């Protein structure tokens, strides 16, 4: 699988994503500079975490205008897999590829810690190797992860099973206390209506090796690999 990792000025989890795909999972990785306008040849694209443009003004607000975002939109429209992690999620929201917006964490602080998230929908290209209801331990690191959307959109997200991850307790209970940032409905990750664009605040790339705590984050990347292989097989036939 050939994964593109977009590098915005201020991205800082780009190398981490590259490391997981290349060194841990043995895939091909292409680093995509934000000024590029084509994503031809890639099987999936990752918008990594970090502070694109310093997160000045609003998180993701300036990055969404990078030339590469036009290409990302086309790529997504053509059914390509797009994963936005943390700042990447924020950029997808600002770009309108996913619905909603991010507010400041309820505590107003940056928070870096382990969280548990429940896989609400395992029938997606990003979660296919998980079981529905499975609890993953994945760390967060952000100051603006307090997801918000209007009630109508929220109802739509729920009705279409677009909420993919919710913050929960270690044993899978979705409680207000388990939500680290005040996010609406404990939302930690959502997908678009078509199902090929996922945004999530937790950082799966930070927990894909036992030495770093857990391997839970691998599930997401492995699902992407499985999905892309299936697609290729289907294409050959």
């Amino acid at each position, binding site marked *: 699988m050939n994964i593109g990792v977009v590098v915005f000025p201020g991205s800082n989890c780009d190398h981490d994503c590259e490391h997981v795909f290349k060194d841990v999972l043995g895939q091909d990785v292409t680093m995509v500079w934000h000024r590029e306008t084509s994503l031809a040849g890639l099987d999936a694209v990752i918008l990594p975490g970090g502070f694109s443009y310093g997160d000045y003004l609003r998180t993701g*607000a300036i990055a969404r205008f990078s030339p590469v975002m036009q290409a990302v939109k086309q790529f997504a429209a053509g059914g390509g897999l797009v994963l936005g992690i943390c700042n990447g999620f924020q950029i997808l929201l600002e770009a309108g590829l996913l619905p*909603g*917006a991010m*507010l400041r964490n309820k505590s*107003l602080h940056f928070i870096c810690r382990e969280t548990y998230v429940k896989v609400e929908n395992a029938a997606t290209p990003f979660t296919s190797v998980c079981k529905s209801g499975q609890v993953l331990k994945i760390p967060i690191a952000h100051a603006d992860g307090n997801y*918000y959307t209007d009630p109508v959109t929220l109802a739509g997200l729920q009705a279409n099973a677009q909420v993919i991850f919710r913050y929960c307790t270690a044993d899978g209970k979705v409680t207000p206390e388990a939500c680290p940032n005040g996010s609406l409905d404990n939302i930690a990750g959502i997908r678009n209506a078509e199902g090929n664009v996922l945004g999530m605040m937790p950082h799966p790339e930070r927990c894909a090796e036992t030495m770093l705590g857990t391997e839970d984050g691998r599930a997401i990347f492995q699902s992407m690999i499985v999905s892309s292989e299936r697609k290729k097989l289907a294409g050959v036939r």
Partner: protein
Amino acid sequence: MKAKIHVTLKQGILDPQGKAIEHALDSLGFKNAANVRVGKYMELDLQQTDKSKAEIEVKQMCEKLLANTIIEEYRYELS
């Protein structure tokens, strides 16, 4: 021409920063303050002498970049 732009959270959207400030004011003894809301204020110079053209430009800037209209509203003055 100078543009002065205010971007604030829409009514009804929780403003954690405003809440925190209200709390802090309270603990500093300012018991009279309530409904604190925090927003952004931006100033910029426009090389544009035609007011109606300037207006269009500033509106576009706000819609496109300066405000996120899902959660924020904006207003501006030109002078």
